[in-house]
């Protein structure tokens, strides 16, 4: 298909295929193979180790009957949409501000990006502290005289997700900002000049001219941020271990807990299959659309 449009011999293209062999092997052997493995064993009653005692859909029946799973899905939806919206908005705003010929640009950029380099094991602990009513910000506010300031974000089932979003944004917006800034830097100066000549206000230029031009950046960023959301696990374990109660449980944690802690591999893999099928349903039509569009 694509090869036919290019003037290359089949022989030359063969070397591309050979070069892409590691990718093909990984795609088929690990990602496709691993997905099939996941699906197959989700129909078994595997406990600690994979077993081939098939039990039909009973793992799924139980999954959808478990309050913790529905809470996990709900939490992921809330966390995911908040994180997506805020990381895109904040990331883009910061990038746009950074693009105003400011001083100390690299200092600001480094500050925004540094959380990306620290592992969640301990940053989770730090946020636990900062949000601890007897230790962190709430105590600071009380010491400063705001007596009523008694916010226990992490201890309250209704607010714990916001605490996770705060820490999640802290960790990831820097990277989003850098991607966006890079996209802005890739926009031709002529566009700006033309917009200024036409007297279009800066915010309108951003919204109606620049943003549509940055489609590629948004897609790259979307894949990176969305995959991070789906796999969300470390942050939750480090900050709340799913608590209070299971107010901050997420699907990936459900999967791992059942696979490794509760010795119910079948149940964990059923949950994992549901996650993967959801991703598949969203990703594949999108990929088909993008690639079809590109064909000459």
């Amino acid at each position: 298909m694509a090869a036919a449009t290019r003037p290359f011999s089949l022989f030359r293209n063969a070397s591309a295929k050979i070069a892409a062999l590691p990718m093909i092997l990984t795609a088929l052997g690990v990602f496709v193979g691993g997905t099939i493995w996941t699906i197959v064993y989700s129909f078994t009653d595997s406990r600690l180790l994979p077993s081939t005692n098939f039990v039909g859909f009973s793992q799924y029946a139980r999954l959808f009957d478990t309050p913790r799973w529905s809470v996990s899905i709900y939490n992921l939806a809330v966390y995911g949409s908040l994180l997506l919206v805020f990381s895109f908005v904040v990331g883009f705003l910061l990038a746009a501000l950074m693009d105003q010929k400011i001083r100390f640009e690299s200092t600001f950029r480094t500050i925004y990006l540094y959380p990306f380099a620290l592992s969640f094991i301990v940053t989770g602990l730090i946020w636990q502290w900062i949000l601890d009513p007897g230790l962190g910000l709430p105590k600071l506010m009380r010491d400063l005289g705001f007596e009523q300031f008694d916010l226990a974000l992490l201890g309250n089932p209704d607010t714990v997700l916001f605490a996770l979003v705060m820490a999640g944004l802290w960790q990831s917006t820097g990277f989003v900002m850098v991607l966006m800034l890079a996209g802005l830097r890739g926009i031709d100066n002529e566009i700006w000049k033309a917009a200024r000549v036409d007297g279009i206000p800066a915010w309108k230029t951003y919204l109606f001219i620049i943003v549509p031009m940055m489609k590629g950046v948004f897609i790259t960023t979307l894949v990176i941020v969305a995959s991070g959301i789906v796999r969300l696990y470390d942050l939750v374990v480090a900050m709340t271990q799913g608590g209070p109660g299971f107010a901050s449980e997420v699907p990936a944690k459900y999967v791992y807990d059942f696979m490794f802690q509760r010795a119910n591999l079948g149940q964990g893999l059923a949950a994992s299959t549901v996650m993967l099928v959801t991703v598949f349903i969203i990703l594949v039509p999108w990929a088909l659309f993008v690639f079809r569009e590109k064909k000459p």
Partner: protein
Amino acid sequence: MSDITMTLPERSLSAGPRGAKPRRRFAPSTIMLYSVLIIAALYYLLPLYVMVVTSLKGMPEIRMGNIFAPPVDITFEPWITAWDSACTGLYCEGIKVGFWNSVKITVPGVIVSIAIASVNGYALANWRFKGSEIFFTILLFGAFIPYQVLLYPLVILLRELGIFSTLTGIVLVHTIFGMPILTLLFRNYFAALPVELFKAARVDGAGFWQIFLQIYLPMSLPIFVVGLILQVTGIWNDFLFGVVFAGSQNYPMTVQLNNIVNAVQGVKQYNVNMAATLLTGAVPLFVYFVSGRLFVRGIAAGAVKG
């Protein structure tokens, strides 16, 4: 679309910020601008500040004061303890034990994963073959698979290959898990390079590897730095795969970090925990620091074209 990005690599090296018009100093809008940037910076710096301050306090001071107060008696003891003598179970040798193991895992892991993903990206962008986009879609799908789900299949795979509990094994694992995002970045970067360059090289009779090594590679330093930063960060901070696949003789630094942070001698040694974390995070921070400028330019070209 390609008109804009075609000239990017050369241009971006000299391209500075080019947002709206330059402003007068101390105009209200300038003050607003810096206020927003500084407030945002405070939000990002707060946890780092708490970490650094805590790591310089003695335990009594941590217990008494609040976490934001600067240290009254600055002590570097926690840093020395974290590096040299913090206990991780039976042994009390600090996190230095795993440092070289982490280096041994990170260096080949970063090199191999980037080498393979860059060739993938190049093949996908310039040498599309039948089905290449299907494989790319599978890779993108792979980015969404929770890693730990693949733990047992990978254990069995590596066992059958005879490389379980070896450096080769852990390098392979990091190559596999780094592949989706890295390939995405490289593919988009190469797709944004001028097509004319590629066509001219073809006319001159250059082949797959020649074009890649002699023309694309020298032009693509920035994206390689991006890959370097992503992989150094990811592999250096990895805990689970390092413990499972590298073998106990190669336990990375994060094993000690986990044992120090999760293990406590009676009272939790918060100052030592913070120092250990900052020490462990120093390597990715350093890599980011020295390559920060190239980082932005690299992503620019990589992300511009979807």
